[in-house]
């Protein structure tokens, strides 16, 4: 019996459908999430993140491999796993004819929480998500972001030991996203474990203790955001543009990515001055900034996270 909140080994999922070739959505995903951790699955659309989350949350059966939650086999005993998980589904919506307050409260009651506990947690979640002013309005009258916040409030109010959040801050404004992030951090301080999928690099970086980069149904790399950024080969990125740009001149400085009109070079701070001298000589415009997760993703996957 493993003590991990979640553990998977060589998890595969093949979608079969009549008249179409099978689609291998997961190709042997092995990962672990320790108790109390916040872990992000980061990947492009179609990378397999949601498929993994659906299997982990007992909603989809794997084709092969093993997955356990708190030591229970998810595939064999979903009924034993379900009391300890809660899910914010991708594109989930609250009941349109319930208010956010009713939505959260009735969900908690349906999960078996006592009235007083459900009431207290409902108020707390509504406040955390900044929904006080719309708490008694029907969800049908709310904006997309407010509806999404209602979904997150519904799930965080459960304080379930393991929470799955599929693109939790999609459609939210920057302030609301920060509220969500703060609430999720608070939950892990209370002891919950979080597994989220996202294609927002900032969300993955700010929110997760560790992250797994997923592409084509495989985990390509995992580690902390800092570890992944260090793997790029430098701590600074220099973006160069101009008619005098000769890519070959910069290839010796570090990893280069060219998108046609601009060249991004990953470089160590010690060699920055030397690189900039060439840029000045060539009359190029240069932008210097720290390496971000975007460069790490590009380096690992070979494509931008927003590329279709």
């Amino acid at each position, binding site marked *: 019996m493993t*003590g991990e909140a979640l553990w998977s080994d060589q998890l595969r999922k093949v979608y079969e459908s009549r008249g179409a070739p099978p689609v291998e959505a997961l190709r042997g995903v092995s990962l672990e999430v320790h*108790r*109390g951790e916040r872990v992000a699955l980061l990947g492009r659309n179609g990378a397999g993140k949601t498929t993994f989350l*659906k299997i982990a*949350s*007992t*909603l*989809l*059966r794997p084709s092969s491999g093993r997955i356990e939650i*708190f*030591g*229970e086999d998810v595939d064999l*005993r*979903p*009924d*034993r*796993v*379900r*009391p*300890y*998980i*809660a*899910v*914010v*589904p*991708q*594109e*989930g*919506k*609250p*009941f349109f*004819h*319930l208010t956010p307050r*009713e939505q959260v409260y*009735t*969900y908690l*009651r*349906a*999960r*078996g929480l006592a009235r007083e506990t459900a009431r207290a947690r409902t108020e707390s979640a509504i406040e955390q998500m900044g929904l006080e002013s719309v708490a008694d309005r*029907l969800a049908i009258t709310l904006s997309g972001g407010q509806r999404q916040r209602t*979904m997150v409030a*519904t*799930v965080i109010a*459960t304080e379930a*030991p393991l929470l*799955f959040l599929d693109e939790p801050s999609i459609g939210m404004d920057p302030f609301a996203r920060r509220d969500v992030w703060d609430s999720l951090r608070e939950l892990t301080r209370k*002891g*919950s*474990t979080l597994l989220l999928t996202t294609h927002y690099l900032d969300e993955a970086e700010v929110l997760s203790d560790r992250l797994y980069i997923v592409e084509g149904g495989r985990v390509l790399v995992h580690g902390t955001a800092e570890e992944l950024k260090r793997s790029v080969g430098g701590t600074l990125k220099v973006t160069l543009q101009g008619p005098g740009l000769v890519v070959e001149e910069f290839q010796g400085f570090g990893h280069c990515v060219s998108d046609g009109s601009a060249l991004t070079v990953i470089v160590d701070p010690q060699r920055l001055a030397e690189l900039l001298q060439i840029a000045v000589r060539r009359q190029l415009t240069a932008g210097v900034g720290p390496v971000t997760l975007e460069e790490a993703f590009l380096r690992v996957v070979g494509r931008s996270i927003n590329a279709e």
Partner: protein
Amino acid sequence: MPSELPLAPSRAFRGLGAFLWTELLVQAHEWLAMATSMVVQGVLLVFVWILDPSLLPVSFLGAILFSMFTMGQRVLNEAAYLRIDHKANDLYLASPITPEGYFLGMALGILTVYVGPVLAIGLLSLWVVPYTPAIGALLVVLALSVWLFSASTGYIFSTFFRDNRAIWAYSSLFFNLFGVLFPVFYPLSLFPADLRPIALVLPPSAAAALLQSSIGAISLSEGQIALAAGALAVEVTLILFAAVLWARRTSREA
């Protein structure tokens, strides 16, 4: 977080009561749907009143059964809508709420809201139907049986759809075929003799035939009564059992 969680499976039917309450709150906002849920029955009763008022007792009983049948069919629409549009299955089934609690809570929530207009028809029927306590009890049992059958089939069918728009056609087909074409609003004796055995094994028309017989509107042989009652009991039991199993099975996609 304790090092060893006291993992325990959910009780059977867990979440039923609370989901019933949820559905009740949701449906209670659909007052227009509630108000219009009796339009077909009302129109058919007016037709009967104009054409042959002597058939009104049969038609009133039929209207009650038809209402219970369509109420069950609302489960088809609601379950599919919540699953497809709201992803409510993901939220509710990946939790301690049991799939059967979710299904029956939804069905009972709809029943609780929509039973009001049916009771109104029931009250109106007091003027024309020669009720006795036994007939009243029989009506209640048969109406609930028809509802259970319809709600169960509705839930099962709802799991096959990926698009809400496709459901409307089937939903309309079910209640027009089983509730209007077959002898629910009119006596079994007016139905082609060769096809009566079919009517006696389809739940809405079987229940209607038993009620029509109980008020003396038609005469059924003992064999026909046994066929109708037996078929209804077996079908309702089997389909309810199947729906619970199906709800559990489809709580996970293959």
